[in-house]
């Protein structure tokens, strides 16, 4: 563990002459301890096809007295390794759980960095199926984010699952985590993690802050999940993307407002007999400040249309 820290310091000392810290065997992802024993790395506000796209999601870990739970592993094995290195810098305890909040690459392709005899991968009951559908697509489109040569085996799925609508408690040693598996919302396999010791909710992509929310599950389902989340009381929320907040209700408000507008406007377009392409062209709710709006919003309209035309 020490050599990793030393490696980082050494690289920093020699600076440019030696090249970046990546020149060391492994680099350590910067994390912040936002609550006692709860560490978060806030991802970059980049597009999914931009350089650095493997570091866009919020990922991190929670430390108990017995072991550590990692929550999401980033968009590449490289980022996964860097997170693992960050864990080792902050505790000598082993990782016992890797929890994935859903199936998207930016949260999950780092899983391979954590495989080991004593590590359990945990996810929504539908995560395994979602991964089965996705592996080939991930290999074709994100091979560069896996270890060369990229193999399907590196896209690690869950050993243990939480039934949809149900809960599972995991204990890290005097640190119980409550996992909840949601009905189809942002995706079809959203999972949240509540750390009772600090009153922190890890929301996964049920909450986007600053970055335009991306719809890949059900718009009506997502709004229902937001209603439920708005009513609960927590001290802190770690969103899937964007800044950590101490006010869950306030953090959800812009996302809720956007998704409600999307729902109303796409429903209206369908009622007027507009085809998909006209809805994509015309549905444009107010969007002050959302990042990556121009690529994400049109896709949301297309996805929402295909859901709502069956109402």
């Amino acid at each position: 563990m020490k050599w990793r820290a030393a490696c980082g310091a050494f690289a920093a000392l020699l600076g440019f002459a030696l090249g970046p810290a990546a020149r060391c065997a492994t680099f350590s992802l910067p994390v912040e301890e936002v609550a006692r024993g709860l560490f978060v790395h806030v991802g970059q506000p980049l597009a999914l096809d931009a350089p650095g796209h493997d570091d866009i999601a919020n990922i991190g870990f929670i430390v108990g007295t017995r072991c550590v739970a990692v929550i999401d592993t980033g968009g590449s094995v490289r980022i996964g390794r860097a997170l693992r290195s960050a864990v080792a810098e902050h505790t000598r305890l082993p990782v016992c759980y890797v929890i994935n909040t859903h199936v998207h690459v930016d949260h999950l392709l780092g899983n391979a960095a954590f495989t080991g005899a004593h590590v359990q991968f945990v996810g929504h009951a539908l995560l395994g199926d979602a991964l089965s559908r996705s592996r080939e697509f991930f290999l074709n489109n994100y091979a560069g984010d896996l270890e060369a040569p990229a193999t399907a085996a590196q896209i690690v799925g869950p050993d243990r699952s939480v039934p949809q609508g149900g809960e599972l408690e995991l204990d890290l040693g005097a640190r119980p985590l409550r996992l909840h598996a949601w009905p189809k919302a942002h995706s079809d396999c959203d999972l949240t993690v509540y750390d009772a010791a600090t009153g922190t909710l890890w929301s996964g992509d049920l909450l986007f802050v600053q970055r335009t929310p991306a719809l890949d599950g059900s718009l009506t389902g997502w709004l229902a999940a937001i209603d439920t989340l708005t009513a609960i009381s927590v001290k802190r929320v770690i969103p899937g993307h964007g800044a950590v907040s101490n006010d869950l209700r306030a953090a959800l408000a812009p996302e809720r407002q956007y998704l409600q507008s999307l729902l109303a406007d796409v429903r209206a377009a369908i009622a007027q007999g507009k085809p998909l392409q006209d809805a994509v062209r015309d549905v444009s709710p107010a969007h002050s400040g959302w990042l990556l709006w121009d690529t994400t919003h049109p896709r949301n309209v297309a996805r929402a249309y295909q859901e709502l035309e069956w109402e």
Partner: protein
Amino acid sequence: MRSGTRAVLFLLSVSPSWAIAATDAPTNGAWQALRPQLYGTRDISESGDQLMSVDAPASTPDPSATPVAVHFGRELVGRVHEVRVIIDNNPSPLVATMDLRPGLAVDEIDLRVRIDRFTSVRAIAETDSGRLEMRSAWVNASGGCSTPPSAAQGGVLGQIRFHPSSDDRALQISIRHPNNSGFQVDPRTGDMIPPHFISHIRLSVGGQTLFEAETGISLSENPSLRIVAREPLPAPLTVEALDVPTQSRFAATWQGQAAGTH
């Protein structure tokens, strides 16, 4: 004779050799192979947006359901009897072969298609007088997409929905169906998942066919067909869709807006 030719072409179009052909950079390879099969050495005109055009997003917001619209200008409306849509770089390039019957003057046909990657999307129309017109559009499907097409989003297999325009000139017909490609391997068994798709769609009024299409796996999940006609569409209009491999037939009838059935 004609339907025999089509069956052969369809088999050709789903054979894995196309998947290999489609690994090159954007080309019109599939078209070059299909052209002699479909149209021999006949002249095909490619100029004049007034006559005919193909609209598709230059960068598709959803590669699994990309809208493609074929428009006919005044000169062609009511005179086109067959339209083919081809996506050069898809594993199954021939999207649909559509027959338009006299009595339905069609301005526009919209389909939703799967786009594998950067490709040309082309439509070829044949008029009553045997003239061929082709127009195309480039579509980019790369980037910004974190997930593959979803699993079928539930609902009842074969359920049919109608969305008319307020003047009844346009009608969108959507069919609940996974329209699976069959190119995927079942991770649990290692077997190829057999294709399951809509192979034929027929629109008729009073038993008389107005429009029919042979379709394949390049149509999106929950296939959608939208027809815009010069005049209000006749009603009651019956839609029938044929499922492969079950040979199940799904049907529904649109009563027109006056009947208030939707």
